[in-house]
């Protein structure tokens, strides 16, 4: 009898324990699922492919939105066969970039880290807009490095912020009434973290200051640049410091860029200060007046960095190797994306900026040259590699030029090839396939809004 009672009470105990365990398992499972469903997808969309890589990436790019919009990893793959990921994050202080790197190094072992030093002058650790801290860390699974990152970045902040980053459900639980199809079929960014910003802005005025002017203040930004360099050197990873181009209307930015170069020399590493170089043309290559590059500018910067890496670092070309099929597939998709941007663009300024791309051949047939009186259009044609000069009688112009491998443009007064009301015709050819995939007629008249009309083949 005693044994029976003992058996009954011990099996009751077992069942109750199982009951508690089952409840906990159900609760954790449901909450894990809901955490993924309800969270804002920006971080996952941007960085999903980073976690899908089977092989180590060659290069990691770190920095702010200047990096996100200024460096295209798929272009580097296409031209040089380098695998890279753009881990830039909006409004991100260098301290946050440091912890993004440390978390990323749990998943890959790159040969080179390229750090854009915008934020050198900053003493903040977290982005001012806390949503960007989410964008930086939401995609990373919980790990010791993530905990350390959150602890370091939120040490002077309210404890609730660290709770938010550790378990983002606390932030996103009330998104239940904002769910859309994209929350279920997530449109991952296949461009390896890069994002296009498409526009052509009029840049602000600026002055270049002497190179000996340095940013003397010791800042948190500088401290974390040093930490990044030291961490990479500890792991035998090369570091390249950059200051991506934008109109440097604040002298302090140029001073900081000069200090960056000095620091690079002290650590025996390379640096590129784009302020002093003419890699980009601010009249045609800026998305906004003082900050971000548009695709034309980003292509120039990406190509420059690609050439620089080719000359100064030993990184293999993987284009013919097995195991990189997804890179080729995504690059093809990226080409489709570039073509679609051109085909569907209706703004003449943006159109002329977009076709400034090595992957496309541009043939321009001229009927009238009035648009060359407009400095904006003139600079856009110059950007395409054309020297443009209108003659005094304004009925003809000297236009010629070659940009890298692009074919020369043709001078023509032949109106029969296209509608005589239009000033010029632009034919865009895919260099790889030879397909002439877009043809526009450009209309320009003083006092009227210029237009383009797509004539598709």
């Amino acid at each position, binding site marked *: 009898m005693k044994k029976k009672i003992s058996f009954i009470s011990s099996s009751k105990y077992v*069942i*109750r324990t*199982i*009951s508690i365990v*089952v*409840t906990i*398992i*159900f*609760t954790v*499972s*449901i*909450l894990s699922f*809901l955490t993924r469903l*309800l969270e804002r997808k920006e971080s996952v969309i941007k960085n999903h492919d980073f976690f899908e890589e089977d092989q180590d990436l060659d290069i990691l790019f770190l920095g702010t939105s200047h990096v996100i919009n200024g460096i295209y990893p798929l272009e580097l793959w296409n031209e040089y066969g380098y695998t890279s990921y753009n881990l830039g994050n909006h409004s991100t202080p260098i301290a946050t970039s440091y912890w993004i790197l440390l978390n990323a190094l749990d998943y890959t072992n790159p040969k080179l880290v390229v750090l854009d030093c915008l934020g050198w002058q900053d003493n903040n650790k977290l982005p001012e807009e806390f949503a960007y801290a989410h964008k930086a860390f939401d995609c990373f699974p919980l790990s010791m490095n993530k905990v350390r990152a959150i602890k370091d970045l939120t040490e002077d902040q309210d404890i*609730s912020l660290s*709770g*938010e980053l550790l378990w983002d*459900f*606390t*932030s996103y*639980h*009330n998104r*239940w*009434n904002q769910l859309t199809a994209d929350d279920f079929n997530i449109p991952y960014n296949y461009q390896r973290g890069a994002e296009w910003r498409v526009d052509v802005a009029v840049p602000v005025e600026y002055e270049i200051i002497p190179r000996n002017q340095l940013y003397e203040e010791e800042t948190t930004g500088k401290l974390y640049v040093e930490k990044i360099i030291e961490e990479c050197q500890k792991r035998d990873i090369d570091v390249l410091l950059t200051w991506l181009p934008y109109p440097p209307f604040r002298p302090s930015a140029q001073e900081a860029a000069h200090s960056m170069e000095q620091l690079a020399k002290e650590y025996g590493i390379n640096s590129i200060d784009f302020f002093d170089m003419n890699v980009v043309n601010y009249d045609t290559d800026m998305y906004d007046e003082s900050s971000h590059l548009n695709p034309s500018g980003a292509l120039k910067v990406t190509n420059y960095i690609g050439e620089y890496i080719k000359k100064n670092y030993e990184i293999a070309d993987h284009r013919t190797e097995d195991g990189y099929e997804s890179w080729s597939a995504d690059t093809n998709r990226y080409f489709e994306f570039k073509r679609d941007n051109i085909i569907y663009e209706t703004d003449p300024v943006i159109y002329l900026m977009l076709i400034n791309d090595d992957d496309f051949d541009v043939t321009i047939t001229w009927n009238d040259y009035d648009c060359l009186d407009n400095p904006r259009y003139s600079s856009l044609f110059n950007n395409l590699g054309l020297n443009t000069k209108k003659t005094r009688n304004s009925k003809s112009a000297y236009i010629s030029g070659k940009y890298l491998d692009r074919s020369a443009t043709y001078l023509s007064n032949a109106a029969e090839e296209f509608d005589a009301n239009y000033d010029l015709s632009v034919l865009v050819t895919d260099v790889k396939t030879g397909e002439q995939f877009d043809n526009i007629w450009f209309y320009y008249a003083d006092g009227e809004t210029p237009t383009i009309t797509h004539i598709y083949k």
Partner: protein
Amino acid sequence: MVFNSLGYLVFLPIVVAIYYLLPIRMRYIWLLVSSYYFYMCWSVKYAFLILFSTLVTYISALIIEKVQNFTSCYQRFPFAKISLVCGILLNLGVLIVYKYLNFMSETATKLSHILGANYDFPIYSLILPIGISFYTFQALGYLIDVYRGDIRAERNFFKYALFVSFFPQLVAGPIERSKNLMDQLTCSNQFDFCDASDGFLLMLWGYFMKVVIADRIAIFVDSVYGDIATYGGWFIICATVLFAFQIYCDFNGYSCIAIGTAKILGIRLMDNFNSPYLSCSISEFWDRWHISLSSWFRDYLYIPLGGNRKGRLREYVNKLIVFFVSGLWHGATWAFVMWGGIHGFFLVLGDILRPIKKRITCLLHLNTDSEGNRIIRTVFTFILTDFAWLFFRSQNTSTVKSCIQSIVSTHNIHILFDDSLFNIGLDRKNFTLMICSVFFLLIVDICKNKGICLRRYVLKQDYLVKGLVISISIAFILIFGIWGPGFEEKNFIYFQF
């Protein structure tokens, strides 16, 4: 520390775990320490007020019992009564100073201006210690019980201190009776899985009411009452109807969490609400609403005043006094007094009209037991209580006046049919969720009223179903609750009393 905070969710498991690990004789000490820690998370210095109230009533009770044990009748009564009165006055004195001093000053100032003296009485910056009305009444109840000989004075100071400061019910009730709670605090409570499960489910229900319903309604109600000039007429009516559910869910939510917490610790607290909006009369409403307070007033004010033993007129006067005092207990403004007075008036009127109602019912052959009749009386009772809630929510007489004027003069019933209601803090989905949650609450209350306890029904299921129900409930509360960044932890409404 509030119940709906992360701190409490960390605090409670630690307290429960250590409670059951400790030897039985040490457990109440641990609860006492935890209770004071719980209160001191809000304010260390005001914990001394609880200690003061505890000391005064502890000593007074001992004196009363000692004196009552004297064989000489002459020596017995004056000292016991004096001790009782001193204990009551000292405790009420603290309550009056912190809660009513400025109210009395403002009232005296207004009176002096009306009378032409134009004297401004001083206003003091005093913070109302949370829960002071609750623990003061709890301590006074004990003192009066000792005086009446209903219980023996507690000699163990720490046990008595725990009775006054027991954390689940310290800041917003239920106001417990010493007969029910005192001995439970030191009896040998083994961990009971069924009680703990029931307590946990009760807590979940409390969190649902507070975080999903009450705090959501508060967004709408606060927006309307915060801008009556813009949101007049039917906006105020809708807000007041919703406020009835806000305060019910807020207060009952707290009570459920308190009772659930105590149950996990093996201690049974009294029920504080019993589906009050299913009442068919104001009298029945007060049998179902804030039961611990209404029974306290009945036992310690109404009955000592004479109750219904001194004639009809005196009975009505006593009821009015009790409800005016109840209104004053809830808040130190004339709006609260009026709220209490309105309920007292409805109660007295109901009593006066009862014979007339009975005669009419007979004449018209109405069946008062039919569901339809019950529903009509329930709705009518709700309308009366909701009218009184307007005073409660307004919190001052000028707002009451503005609200009533707006309701009478603004004709905007169309807001019930267009999208106007979805632009006041809650979008359509949130508003719909709020309405659905209130309906669910009413269904649960109707079930409870019919003797069906959904909680017990869930607990009877096998562990897989139970686990699923509990985990889905937790997920539901976490998703749809008003908490997290952008929402401050909303204090429970009754904390301010």
